[in-house]
């Protein structure tokens, strides 16, 4: 079956702009996660959804970052007033339930100029 998909695969934007990154989880997976991977680092947790609600958003770095999952499937990560330090690969993962294996998407590479 289809895995986790993320769009766009690459995004180049200018400092101060707004961006949206999309994640389509595996069908039927109730749990969805966002991570950020900076160059040379391991992924860092941002936020976790169980269904439509954000069950843990402790990893969001500041209030410029926001994520939604309005129908319990597709999720959008939104970044306002982007900064050069936001440049990274943003990874999405989903799992059947909250304690099952997490399956990762290919990521969106964000470059803020």
């Amino acid at each position, binding site marked *: 079956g289809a895995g986790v998909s993320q769009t766009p695969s690459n995004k180049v934007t200018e400092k101060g702009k707004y961006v949206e990154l999309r994640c389509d989880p595996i069908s039927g997976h109730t749990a969805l996660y966002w*991570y950020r991977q900076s160059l*040379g*680092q*391991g992924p860092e947790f941002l936020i976790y959804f169980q269904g439509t609600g954000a069950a843990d958003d402790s990893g969001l770095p500041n209030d410029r970052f926001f994520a939604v999952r309005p129908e319990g499937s597709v999720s959008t990560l939104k970044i306002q007033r982007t900064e050069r330090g936001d440049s990274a690969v943003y990874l999405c993962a989903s799992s059947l339930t909250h*304690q099952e*294996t997490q399956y*990762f998407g*290919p990521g969106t590479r964000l470059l803020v100029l």
Partner: protein
Amino acid sequence: AQSVTQLDSQVPVFEEAPVELRCNYSSSVSVYLFWYVQYPNQGLQLLLKYLSGSTLVESINGFEAEFNKSQTSFHLRKPSVHISDTAEYFCAVSSQGAQKLVFGQGTRLTINP
């Protein structure tokens, strides 16, 4: 808080040689442990995991890892590597009952013919 340390950022080995990728973690609670692999130009894939039971876990492609609670380690080993094992390997931990993964910085495994 939890943390993961991967002691080697890069490990070069010759084909058919044995390899060990080291991982140590810190946590004040019981944990689940994972190794993920990222092949060139691909997303993260689960290689193996320890949840409970036998402390030695194996993957389908010949890797194994042993959970050592006293040494807080989860080292990954393979007795004979192949060119196709060239990838970046990430060790990760989650606390039992929690959802987010905490990753190490990764170890780049390079196989030389």
